[in-house]
């Protein structure tokens, strides 16, 4: 008989120096937090039993995240506020969980469900750059397709689908901020810094990206977006 489990969904951040961690390092760190927190986690059956835990889409080394997610299955129900409290004290500050909720057993996996990502890319350079970068990005969007070389292979993104919203460029305290929303498809996801770098190259600039932050991950359902919590 299958045991009854409870699917706790944890929203957490990957910030500060810890944005330099790889996805696998984040996975291991979160698993260890869950064990330290003393959560009654469920264990997979089979030859190599391990914690039942599943993560949302990976973040690359160097990219920060403010709203990342994992699901951890518990053998017994623990109020979500208690799950959160015990995780917070057992997790390094820069990977701290910020919210816990229960998700339905039948809901799609996080990787399948989270297809919309909002990013913020900060670029060195003030008002002048803001204007030229706006134009340069608009020109790329107007072309409709964007080709990326990935490990010797070319990946082509259809921008009408990949960029469900126009990129927004603004000037903030002497820096230029690009807000990008991307849609992740089966054929991969567009790294925002790749697009911004291409736009910078067109205006003869490079090496100006200060930081990349994924601010939010969303589920797209029947044409509208919602938080997974």
């Amino acid at each position: 008989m299958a045991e009854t489990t409870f699917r706790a969904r944890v929203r957490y951040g990957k910030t500060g120096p810890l944005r330099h961690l790889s996805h696998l390092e984040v996975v291991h760190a979160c698993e260890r937090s869950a064990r330290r927190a003393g959560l009654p986690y469920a264990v997979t059956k089979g030859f190599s039993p391990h914690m039942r835990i599943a993560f949302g889409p990976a973040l690359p080394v160097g990219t920060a995240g403010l709203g990342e997610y994992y699901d951890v299955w518990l053998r017994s129900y623990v109020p979500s506020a208690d799950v959160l409290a015990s995780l917070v004290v057992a997790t390094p500050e820069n990977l701290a969980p910020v919210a816990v909720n229960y998700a339905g057993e039948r809901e799609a996996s996080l990787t399948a469900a989270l297809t919309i990502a909002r990013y913020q890319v900060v670029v060195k350079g003030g008002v002048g750059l803001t204007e030229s970068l706006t134009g340069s990005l608009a020109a790329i969007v107007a072309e409709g397709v964007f080709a990326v070389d990935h490990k010797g292979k070319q990946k082509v993104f259809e921008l009408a689908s990949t960029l469900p919203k126009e990129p927004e460029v603004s000037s903030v305290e002497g820096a230029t901020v690009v807000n990008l929303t991307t849609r992740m498809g089966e054929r991969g996801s567009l790294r925002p810094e790749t697009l911004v770098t291409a736009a910078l190259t067109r205006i003869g600039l490079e090496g100006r990206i200060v930081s990349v932050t994924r601010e939010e991950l969303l589920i797209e359902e029947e044409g509208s977006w919602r938080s997974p919590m």
Partner: protein
Amino acid sequence: MTDLWTRIAPLLENVERPGRYVDHEWGAIVRRDAGYRVALVYPDLYEIGMANQALQILYGRLLTLPDVAAERVFLPWKDMTEALRAAGLPLFTLETCTPVAECDLVGITLAYELTYSNILETLDLAGIPLRAVDRSEADSLVIGGGPCAFNPEPMAPFFDAVLVGDGEEAVLEIVAVHRAAKARGASREETLSALAALPGVYVPTLYHNDGNKMVATGGAPAQVRKRVLGDLGTFESPVCPVVPFMDVVHDRVAIEVLRGCARGCRFCQAGMVYRPVRERTPDAIVRDTTAALACTGYEEVSLTSLSTADHSCLEEVLRRLTRRLEGTGVGVSLPSLRVDAFSVGIARLLGGGKKTGLTFAPEAGTQRLRDVINKNVTEEDLIETVTKAFDAGWRRVKLYFMIGLPTETDEDITGIGELVGRVLTAARAVTPPAERGGMKVAVSVSTFVPKAHTPFQWEAQIRLEEVRRRQTVLRAAMPRKGVDLSYHDPNVSFLEGVLARGGREVADVIEAAWRAGARFDAWTEEFDHKKWDAALAETGVDGTTIANRERALDETLPWQHISAGVTGAYLKIERERARSATPTPDCTFDGCTGCGVCGAPGVANVLAGVRHG
């Protein structure tokens, strides 16, 4: 204290695996305002150094002192050292990003001979003068310790002091002496004299070479005897070690279940220098393991020692632990197994469904040679062990052998091939025909390097061309099918031999090699023997007279002023017994063999129960 973080951070955008440099791991203790700062250096990459148990032990011990900060330091990979030098930045500690040169004490692990060039790179990157004699009053105190401290001479000029033996108590005494010296405004010279008065502390500048003998001056002891922690139970095994984010080697929490090994393998330096045997009690092991898993959140615990299967209460410990951990997905592992049926039983108990591979070390191919080296394993044991393992479902075993052991003949070498052949036959006999395709016997063959403080310390290491000839003999004798044969690079073994048994003159060679760019010599793809050959030529040191020469028994050896407790007389007797292929029993099962280590007060074997050989 200078915090370099804001200047280091931008460099992380362009280096490989920046996780090595970010700190903030679980269990890292930050004490910005401490009055005394210790840098604990492991001279290799983060992912290697973080597996070092001594580092975690000393970290925990130092942090029991109020007002003392202990901070980890690893050598950055080449891209990062380049970036640091280009930015004019020095090597920094992880916890607070303090320049290493601003620490009061810099402790460096002497883990392995091939990390020596990295130690010079560490000092240079830190901006600390390489040689003790060039350091000023303002410079940090540089202290070494670890396995290679038992022949400190090749590295002696680069250290202010070297601790020989167990560090748990000694590091606290060293810090106390140094702090007291600072408080009274003592000079560097006075501080070093005070340190030399501590048992187990060797201050190289107080010894000079007088016709091959290192002679003590300024009140330093004629012979420095290693420190021994009488009872491991005095301190708990570190239960809240730093938990790395990165995937490091041995990525699990380690509980040291015993220290020392009295099996008496005559080639083994660890077996001689870490005596006596000191077991932790089962209660302490279960208590520390439970606490460590709760504190770290690790998914695996390793019960470590030189020979864990020898622990008198291992079965009880494993029964208690596996019962506690049932259903948690948390596993127990052992670092090494003996060649016997007991070990296969243990492996079955631990592995659950996982049968990844078992490793055994028969070391030599014939019974005669195994008797010479006192490796108390018979062919029968090995065949029975392998049969049990394959019968239980394992399909892969790894066997370790050495070539170049004293008295070895070609017959012993072809004996390795024949033994492997019989292992394969035995394994095949109990493996269902459909699964025989997946069978694999990995055979790893290293070249014997004689080490200080062993019965073979007087022996000649075989020359490079002879290594290659014996490898050819071995290849011809090895079954082709089902065997993966690998060798150690003979050039690496030669260098290891020079660094392991050289005297103080070898320091010039190490410095010359480092100046020529030698780094990360322990990394196969980084090791370049040409840099070392050139360094030997440049300094006029003949490496072959160090590595490949048999010493007379009355010759003064470069490490004679260091005592591991085991007497020279015992080593000579053991050498004689080796020559007549006479085994010596293990004193934890049979009677005392008179090695001499238990002569010192409070030093004796400590067993938690009755051992079964």
